[in-house]
């Protein structure tokens, strides 16, 4: 049986380092090529040696698809394409293509320039890698080659995030990447049509969460920030430069404007300006409100939010600072956190998921003392708040997407094993479809039942129609007679006559024969005559002919009488009928016996 094979190289029962290999209809596709935030060694990147031990990947992969620009989905791309070696096409949406290199460059700078790592990809490699990118539009079907086609759907999550449908023949896989089913201040909700894929590969970061309404969360968030600022405290919001950051900026910006607050809001890193530029550009990828109002005012032109300078962190008085990165594992956010951690008036709000091993994860789990490099310990006195602003679908959202797409099988990635287990049970029970959750390196194969397209000649169809019967119904199978010709990689169903003609064959007739022995003293001809008269009297409705050459023909049945030389009384009656009339002949025969 044909099957679809899925092997996660990362993100299998894990969050981060998304990289999934899919083999479908003889094509190999890599979905996402991310890095892991929690590691600084080889485990950071997916293990490409799984694909091939030595040599380039080009011959093993038909294409690479990147769902969105977050580093855990595209961080290993230059490493894979330039250092391991891949020259095939890389697909991503326009905004992803624009923003991805900025993030990669930033990531490279931190790793190489700050930490002094060697054997890392260079700026040139990022550029070379981006040259291999083919941009995608929403709902545009792109033929990768003659058989493989891909199509992108809107996924919410971040600007330019896409879900991808991969199709070979009638087999298809949908990979969601990260997606969000509830719209927010700047992005719409993920949407997919009822494409009924054979397999839906979905992220499951929030597999066991059903979130409160987003307005509650927004209000809580604003209230917490407002209270701290009124108390004179400082608020640190660690974010990734793009995505949630813009969402929270819009939220705070409008709130500041409405409440007429004066405390400064800062945004760290120069990345923002570049990124905001792209947000302004790709306004069509945002939600209804921003799309409709941008003529009067582009929501991404902030009035209250200013660029951050390192020296501001020591300024007295309240302030709100957005700093990267989002999990407090390095960079500016960690620096500021160290400075402010000692004061209980201050607050840190973690607006999203934190990977195990990061400072963010530790403080969220209530650690009060943190070990820093060089044996120093840091007392955490400031308030730690968690507010799920991650634009990931929650359990209900995942269910909703499944209902929208109606897949035949389900595969969960990008989540914690325990939580996945729970969701898996739920899915299996709700939709009664099988659900898989392979670990990294583990291959899951899904048996498919691909339909084989066959061309039917119009004449044959018309003939079938003329026979009458119910109208053709797309949902019900129907039997018909015809000849299947398999020739030159194509299948055709034609009428038998046409098939004979085309193939240059002559028609063979299949006849059944049967011998019956009778004791009859009459001559052969008389016997035949008697049979003839008898049949005539029995089968009144059939046309019966006595042909002079010594046969009786009842429709297509031929009857002959012969007798052997040694025993003239023993007559052998030969019955012969064609294949088509087998059934009716049998009944007639019975009648004759009678």
């Amino acid at each position, binding site marked *: 049986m044909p099957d679809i094979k899925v092997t996660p190289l990362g993100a299998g029962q894990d969050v981060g380092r998304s990289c999934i290999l899919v083999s479908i209809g003889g094509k190999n596709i890599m979905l996402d090529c991310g890095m892991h935030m929690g590691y600084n060694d080889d485990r950071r990147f997916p293990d490409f040696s799984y694909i091939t031990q030595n040599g380039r990947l080009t011959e093993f992969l038909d294409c690479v698809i990147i769902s969105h620009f977050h580093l855990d989905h595209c961080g290993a791309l230059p490493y894979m394409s330039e250092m391991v070696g891949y020259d095939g096409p890389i697909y991503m949406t326009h905004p992803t293509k624009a923003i991805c290199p900025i993030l990669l460059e930033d990531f490279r700078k931190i790793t190489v320039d700050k930490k002094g790592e060697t054997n890392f990809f260079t700026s040139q490699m990022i550029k070379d890698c981006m040259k291999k990118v083919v941009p995608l539009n929403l709902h545009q079907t792109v033929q990768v080659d003659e058989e493989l086609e891909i199509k992108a759907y809107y996924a919410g999550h971040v600007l330019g995030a896409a879900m991808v449908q991969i199709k070979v023949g009638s087999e298809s896989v949908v990979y969601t990447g990260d997606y969000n089913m509830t719209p927010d201040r700047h992005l719409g909700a993920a949407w997919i049509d009822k494409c009924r894929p054979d397999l839906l590969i979905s992220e499951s970061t929030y597999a066991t969460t*059903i979130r*409160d309404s987003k*307005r509650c969360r927004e*209000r809580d968030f604003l209230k917490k920030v407002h209270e701290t600022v009124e108390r004179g405290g400082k608020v640190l919001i660690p974010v990734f430069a793009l995505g949630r950051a813009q969402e929270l900026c819009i939220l705070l910006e409008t709130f500041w404007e409405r409440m007429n607050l004066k405390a400064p809001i800062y945004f760290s890193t120069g990345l923002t300006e570049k990124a905001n530029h792209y947000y302004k550009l790709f306004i069509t990828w945002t939600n209804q409100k921003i799309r409709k109002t941008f003529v009067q005012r582009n929501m991404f032109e902030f009035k209250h939010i200013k660029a951050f300078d390192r020296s501001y962190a020591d300024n007295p008085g309240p302030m709100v600072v957005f700093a990267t990165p989002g999990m407090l594992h390095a960079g500016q956010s960690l620096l500021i956190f160290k400075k402010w951690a000692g004061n209980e008036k201050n607050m840190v709000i973690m607006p999203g998921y934190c990977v195990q091993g990061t400072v963010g994860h530790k403080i969220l789990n209530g650690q009060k003392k943190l070990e820093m490099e060089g044996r120093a310990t840091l007392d955490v006195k400031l308030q730690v708040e968690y507010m799920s602003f991650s634009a990931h679908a929650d359990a209900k959202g995942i269910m909703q997407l499944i209902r929208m797409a109606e897949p035949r099988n389900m595969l969960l990635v990008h989540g914690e094993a325990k939580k996945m287990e729970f969701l898996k049970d739920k899915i299996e029970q709700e939709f009664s479809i099988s659900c898989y959750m392979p670990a990294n390196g583990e291959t899951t194969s899904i048996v498919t039942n691909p339909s084989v397209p066959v061309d039917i000649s119009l004449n044959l169809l018309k003939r079938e129609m003329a026979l009458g019967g119910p109208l053709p119904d797309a949902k019900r199978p129907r039997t018909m007679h015809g000849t299947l010709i398999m020739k030159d990689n194509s299948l055709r169903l034609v009428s038998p006559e046409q098939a004979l003609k085309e193939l240059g064959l002559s028609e063979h007739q299949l006849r059944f024969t049967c011998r019956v022995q009778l004791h009859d003293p009459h001559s052969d001809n008389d016997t035949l005559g008697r049979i003839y008269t008898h049949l005539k009297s029995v089968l009144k409705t059939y046309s019966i002919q006595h042909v002079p050459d010594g046969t009786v023909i009842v429709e297509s049945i031929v009857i002959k009488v012969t007798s052997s030389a040694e025993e003239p009384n023993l007559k052998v009656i030969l019955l012969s009928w064609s294949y088509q009339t087998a059934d009716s002949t049998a009944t007639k025969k019975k009648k004759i016996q009678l």
Partner: protein
Amino acid sequence: MSAHINHVVVVLQQVSLEEVPAKKLRLTKPSKSAALHIDLCKATSPTDALQYLLSFARRPVEAESVEGVVRILLEHYYKESDNSVRLKIASLLGLLSKTQGFAPDCIVDDAINTLNNEKSHQVLAQLLGTLLIIGTQLPDKIAVVQRLIDVACKHLSSTYFGVRNKCLQLLGCLGTVDKPLSKETDAGPGAQTSHVRDVQSVISDYFQDQDPRVRTAAIKAMLQLHERGMKIQQTIYNQACKLLSDDYEQVRSAAVQMVWVLSQLYPESIVPIPSSNEEIRLVDDSFGKICHMVSDGSWVVRVQAAKLLGSMHQVSPHFLEQTLDKKLMSDLRRKRTAHERAKELYASGEFSSGRRWADDAPKEKVDTSGVNLIDSGACGAFVHGLEDEMYEVRISAVEALCSLAQSSPSFAEKCLDFLVDMFNDEIEEVRLQSIHVLRQISTHITLREDQLDTVLAVLEDSSRDIREALHELLCYTNVSTKDCIQLALVELLKNLTKYPTDRNSVWKCLKFLGARHPTLVLPIVPELLSTHPYFDTPEPDMDDPAYIAVLVLVFNAAKSCPTMPALFSDHTFRHYAYLRDSLSHLVPHLRLPGRKQTASSGLEASGVGSGSLESAQNFLQDSLVRVSALQNLETPGAQDLLEFTIRDLLRLGELQTELAGSADFCATYLHCQLLLTKWLSFDDLEFLYSGLETQQIATIHNVRLQAKALQLILTARSKPGVDRVLGACEKFLQDVESFQRLFMTELPHFQDSFVEKLLELMPRLTTCKPLDLVKILQTTLRQSGFIHLKLPEQIHRASATIIEPTGESDNPLKFTTGLVVALDIDATLEHVQDPQTSVKVQVLYPDGQSHIIHPKPGDFRTPGPGRVRLITQVYLSHSAWTEACQIEVRLLLAYSSSSSKQSASKPAWNESMDGLPTSESCIEGTIHLSKPVKVFIMPKPARR
């Protein structure tokens, strides 16, 4: 050419021979059909023919010649081989049979016959469409309808979707469910069932058609049946539910409606839950299913589902409440058994809310056999709807919430949080709508402090509509604590300083807030009035709007809290007296302890003193009774009495806003009576007050007639000359007749009145000479009694106040001569009927020029019942002036009465009326509605 004409005549004769020969009309008016025929015969190619037909279709056809035209068209139809031409002819047939006054039953047979030989599917579909039109024209011809239905059933098995569509449409529009179809038409799609089937089951077969368009048409046909009042059977419920998960948007959209219709028809019938052996009410089941559609992939369906939810009032409360619950729902359908209730208890901790870190570690593995996350779709439907990306969906969800909350107080309580959250929506329309909705359900709810906080934050919104809607909301809101009152006051005062134009609205809001929560206001009174137990505090400034606002709140609370005045300091009492007089509509009457009645008018001494509405009403009644004792106005003292009564009534109107309308009306009426001898416009009386009964209108007309009679006498005396009087007499008699015509039913009430006498004398009046008539009139007038007013019940005086411009500005509005300047006008209108057409803005220039401006319909907004707000711009322009001067802006109420219709030509837009007297200028057909406001303007000469 002549050959053609001959041909026409021949054809027409042939046609007429076939028919009843009496129909000569076609021969007398052959032009149209003949021309068509000629054209069609001339046509060499299908394109030509099409052109002729198209141009023919543009002209109307008289009802008499329709049949002839139809025959000609049919004739060509049979000859024509081109599909498109036949299609056009078919559509023309339908068009023609719609002609007014034409009964299409004569062409039914022909139309049906055309179907038999038609091969083209498109044409067939069009022909069926034509039949549909014919059928809808003849709904009561049962035989015809039956034939059409048979035809439709026959063609239902067509392979072309258009034909099936039209057939279903036909069945939907014409079919009846109570009568089974006849046997020979019983041709379902393959299902050759032998038993007799009705239209509904035939249509429902097509719910599973392979073509989505046909499926849609089938559901629509079913809905059509329902709309026509046919009883739809419940049997299709399951099929309709299956269609909710159809691949196609339009099918789902129609199916949602279908399910809704069924839920309204059979709310109480019981349906089984699949995959379990339990049963629920149908309305609950369908509610759950429609809730599900709120998270559909297509926003059109989502909008529809959200809207329909609002009208499902019969749904059980626990299902309703789930719509606001997004937490995992552990299948409330099974809640009845104790075992399952226990399960629900610990399943509720199953999902985390996402507000706290790491609260989402799965606890115990639940036995999930009963937990059904998806199928019980009601769960969180509104949470989804309110969070939807498209604001159309959010608005429909808000509206649905409103309608459901109005019928269920407990639901109202629950949805409060969600509605308050919507105040922060990013789209203003949604915010506004949710504020309105909260106002509508505010009787059921009490706001908590945090909710109020969120609500009040909106007061800083820059949009005036939002702020005013919020004031309106606060008027009707119940709050729970005194802190809430304080919070609201502080925010309202902030609002007042930020937007001074909101003054009236803020005051009014505080009036209601105070009157609603006297006990909550009581403990904070000292703080509000900043009084101190030992020290005298400085007297606040009486003109400070914020101080007035506080006083309005306190005084209204004090009305139903007698202990409160004890906390007032001396100046507060003084301020009360002042405000009671100057802002009587905002400050109620208070019974102040140990003090004399502050208002010392004789009126209150005579019974209104208690301040209650009832006594005021009694007083009004008494006054009218007193006046009615008068038999004749010429009795000595009668006029004095009238004058006093008028004064009393006017004063009463000022003090009792509730009765202002009635009192004013009576006063004005009496005034008119008094001033009968003078020239008076009675139009005010009739048009300025709404809610008048016919009798009262008739009374007014009576007075008008009296005045006219007087006028007539006056003309006759002062200007001798028979011609002039003759004309006037005729006009007067016409008026009398029209009075009789209009108020025939009211005549019994006019015993002894002028009109009655006049009508008695009518035969004499019409025949006699003008001078005699004048004499008769004179005596009748003197003899006629005074008609007494019955106390009017529901009278409101139409009024308008211009809020902006205030007329206080000393800075002239400067603009260049010849160009225009826009003046913003903001006015409130009360009790104006049909303001869009009747309210105009008048601009009066110092040189006597007067402009009338008709505001756009969109400029009128309705913040509350009976109140309309006009926010518009008028354009001013004038030639150069040497110095700034004031213009007057006022609102006019246009009316049209029987008498003024002939005389008053409608003033065109911006039509200037030169040469009218400036001060008392009143454009004919209009009444002054508001006081004029003066605006300084200064047209400067253009600089070159």
